[in-house]
């Protein structure tokens, strides 16, 4: 029978995957079974934890938001637009919905009965892959949550639904720890402890997997007394194991784990239990493969309970950084994301450290990061510079209060060290009594640096004045920056001295325009990109923003763009400085990632001709800005 409506729906469906790969007649038969739903803004199509509908959905027009309920709040997981599929749970596991679908604007949605579509999934590999991919992107946060086997109060928002990362093949442990059937439980527990693994696979003489034992099994079946540690592993192992072949995508792995409600998959040669074990894949591997998402990392950082875990996040951040550099993402954007993650890591370390203290802090305090961290310009985990400011207390309580915060700072700096931030060689850390003081002592210290400038004071102020509030009471940080601007306004001489130190930095190029390299010491014959190039740009930006009383602009690039706004006649210089600084940061970061160090000392013979030229081009703005400082503060008279 003729069905004009179905024809029209078919015309719509065929534009979108997975329907685009289906034949015309197939599509027509699907279109003829569809229900058309009109959803008002704010109305729900399905709600979390209700049972699955017998159909899944494609958006015809409008926008459907997918939400996860978190306590009294909702986190947006994804927004489905025209042609997007949602509610695919019925096609894959047929359990209760893990999220709610609500219309963000009035929408028309086609409901496709599961039974109508099922045959096409089985027959068509492409359709199957697409559905798995879509489902996995939506289910991803669900997955990371159950990773710890507990109900978690946070979810992770996924920005893009159509990224194909879920279709990559997954990496997993290719050297699984195995044992044989007659090993005792004690044997394998020792083996697992020694190798630091959470599971062991029991294999026969042909290396085919027979069963699996995880940490959880030892807890549930041995520690409870059900089995003795002298029993053989066969008594507690889970058998048979779930096996897959190695050509497994992230999405497939994820779905397999959810479907069987297990934490490990065995990878065998042909994907059956009757062939040789070649690897083991854990839920952790799936998580790792998603670790390329900054919001995942930040959220993860916020709820991690162990510092070791934070170290892993820091490692992932480095991977992320690498991929950003490869994709040539704009530097300000990279700086922003990486410093957000770093801040989250530091905050978490402080929170965890506070828990380790025997008592809560006696007074309010504020944790500051300094130098490159303070400027949000630290891409590589170089060294840590930080300080603690605490509320003023009576003279007799001062020592005890300071001791409390020193003890706290010790735990924090140790934690930062554990996750990869080296100790500061100059001891510019909150664990140093000089940098762990009350608010009024800090204020007088700052004033002292500005009114009676010494060489040390100038150097220290160039580090300390780039501070950034991280944790605790923010008003104290505000007070301190008021002190700084107040002092600057009273004495131009201080700025002059800062300017001199910017001019006195060793120059990058020699008389014959050759790179000047270090003459002696540990880094002999390398080019010091930090001192010879970046520092001048950083210092100049700081001095000029202080002069203009630009509060709260800590980042060098932001400082230059603000300056360009204020002084249009010098905008060219400032913009070229910002550009040079962007190039230098990327340069240093690439070098650092390459040589696994701070990237500061560059071996010139490893650079290509092109790179050397790019580097040299950055030096011109350095000369220009030095000239500008020279004239503005009449620095000749200081020198």
């Amino acid at each position: 029978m003729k069905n004009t409506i179905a024809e029209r729906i078919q015309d719509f469906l065929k534009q979108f995957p997975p329907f685009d790969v289906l034949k015309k007649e197939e599509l027509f038969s699907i279109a003829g079974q569809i229900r058309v739903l009109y959803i008002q803004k704010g109305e729900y199509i399905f709600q979390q934890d209700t049972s699955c509908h017998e159909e899944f959905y494609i958006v015809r027009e409008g926008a459907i938001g997918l939400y996860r309920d978190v306590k009294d709040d909702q986190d947006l997981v994804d927004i489905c637009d025209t042609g997007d599929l949602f509610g695919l749970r019925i096609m894959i596991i047929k359990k209760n919905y893990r999220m709610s679908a609500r219309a963000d604007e009035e929408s028309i949605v086609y409901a496709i009965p599961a039974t109508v579509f099922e045959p096409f999934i089985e027959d068509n590999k492409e359709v199957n892959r697409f559905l798995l991919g879509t489902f996995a992107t939506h289910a991803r946060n669900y997955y990371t949550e159950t990773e710890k086997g507990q109900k978690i109060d946070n979810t992770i928002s996924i920005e893009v639904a159509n990224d194909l990362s879920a279709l990559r093949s997954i990496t997993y442990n290719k050297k699984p720890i195995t044992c044989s059937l007659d090993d005792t439980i004690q044997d394998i527990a020792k083996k697992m402890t020694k190798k630091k693994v959470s599971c062991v696979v029991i294999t026969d003489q042909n290396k085919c997997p027979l069963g699996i034992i995880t940490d959880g099994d030892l807890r549930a079946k041995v520690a409870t007394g059900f089995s003795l540690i002298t029993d053989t592993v066969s008594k507690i192992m889970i058998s048979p194991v779930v096996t897959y072949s190695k050509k497994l995508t992230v999405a497939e792995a994820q779905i397999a784990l959810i479907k069987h409600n297990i934490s490990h998959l065995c990878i065998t040669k042909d994907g059956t239990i009757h062939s040789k074990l070649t690897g083991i894949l854990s839920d952790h591997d799936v998580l790792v493969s998603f670790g390329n998402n900054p919001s995942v990392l930040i959220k993860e950082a916020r709820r991690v309970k162990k510092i070791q875990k934070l170290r892993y996040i820091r490692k992932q951040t480095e991977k992320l950084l690498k991929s950003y550099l490869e994709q040539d993402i704009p530097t300000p954007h990279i700086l922003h994301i990486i410093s957000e993650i770093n801040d989250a890591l530091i905050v978490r370390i402080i929170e965890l450290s506070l828990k380790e203290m025997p008592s809560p802090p006696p007074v309010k305090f504020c944790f500051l990061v300094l130098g490159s961290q303070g400027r949000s310009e630290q891409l590589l985990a170089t060294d840590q510079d930080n300080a603690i400011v605490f509320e003023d207390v009576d003279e007799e309580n001062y020592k005890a209060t300071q001791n409390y915060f020193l003890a706290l700072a010790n735990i924090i700096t140790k934690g930062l060290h554990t996750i990869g931030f080296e100790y500061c060689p100059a001891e510019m850390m909150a664990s140093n009594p000089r940098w762990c003081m009350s608010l009024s002592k800090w204020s007088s210290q700052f004033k002292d640096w500005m009114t009676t400038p010494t060489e040390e004071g100038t150097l220290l102020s160039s580090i300390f004045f780039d501070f950034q509030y991280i944790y605790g009471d923010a008003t104290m940080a505000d007070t301190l920056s008021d002190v700084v601007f107040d002092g600057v306004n009273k004495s131009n001489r201080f700025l002059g001295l800062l300017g001199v130190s910017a001019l006195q930095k060793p120059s990058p190029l020699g008389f014959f325009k050759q790179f000047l390299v270090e003459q002696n010491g540990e880094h002999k014959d390398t080019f010091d990109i930090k001192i010879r190039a970046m520092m001048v740009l950083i210092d100049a930006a700081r001095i000029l923003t202080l002069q203009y009383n630009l509060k709260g602009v800590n980042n060098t690039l932001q400082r230059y763009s603000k300056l360009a706004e204020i002084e249009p006649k010098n905008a060219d210089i400032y913009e070229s400085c910002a550009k040079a600084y962007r190039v230098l940061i990327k340069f240093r970061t690439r070098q650092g990632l390459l040589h696994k160090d701070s990237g500061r000392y560059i071996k010139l013979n490893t650079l290509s001709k092109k790179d050397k030229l790019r580097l040299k081009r950055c030096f011109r703005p350095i000369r220009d800005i030095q000239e500008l400082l020279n004239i503005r503060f009449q620095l000749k008279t200081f020198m």
Partner: protein
Amino acid sequence: MQFWSKKKDNNFPDFWKNYLDLFDQKKENKLLAETRFVAFDTETTGFDYIDDRILSIGAVAINTYAIDVCDQLEVYLEQKVFNKDTVEIHGIRKNNDFDMISEAQALQQFITYVGDSILIAHHADFDRNMINSALQRQGLGKLKNRILDTGSLYRKTKHALYQNDRVHSHYSLDDLCNDLKISKSDRHTASGDAFITAMAFLKITPRLHIDKNIKINDLF
């Protein structure tokens, strides 16, 4: 009672008797979500109930408050009648890729299809009259279904000031498409217009603060 049963003893065809039976019992006042609505439209040779003829009927059902594409009817009628100038009226479609059936067959399919559902049409009086005169020609009674008119429902969504305003009181299906942002694909085919009418119904009712949880009787 005598009076009603007598009428049914006629030589009506079975489908019509079954149809009448559906209306015998007192109707339960169901929720909209549990009610089957049928949106329909007729395509005709003109606007005269007596002389003009139905060319096609398109209808689609709304079940559980969603348009059910598989629950639809689309029939095309053979044109054998002559108009008053005894000129044969041609079907407006050429190159037909569908079967043509007689008026009697079409009515039987339509009546069986709609059953006791609530009908929805745009400017429903016209479509009802066309169907009724066709039924009359076949020696049958009139449509028994309750009918909703999207035109008058839509008028109710307007401010009271404009409801009886001459300029605003007549809303064509095109006006509804524009105002409610409904795609006009297949406009002026019976099925296309039936679908548009169904969509209009779904979009108008929330504006009247009617949702799937109210009872049918509140609609009339």
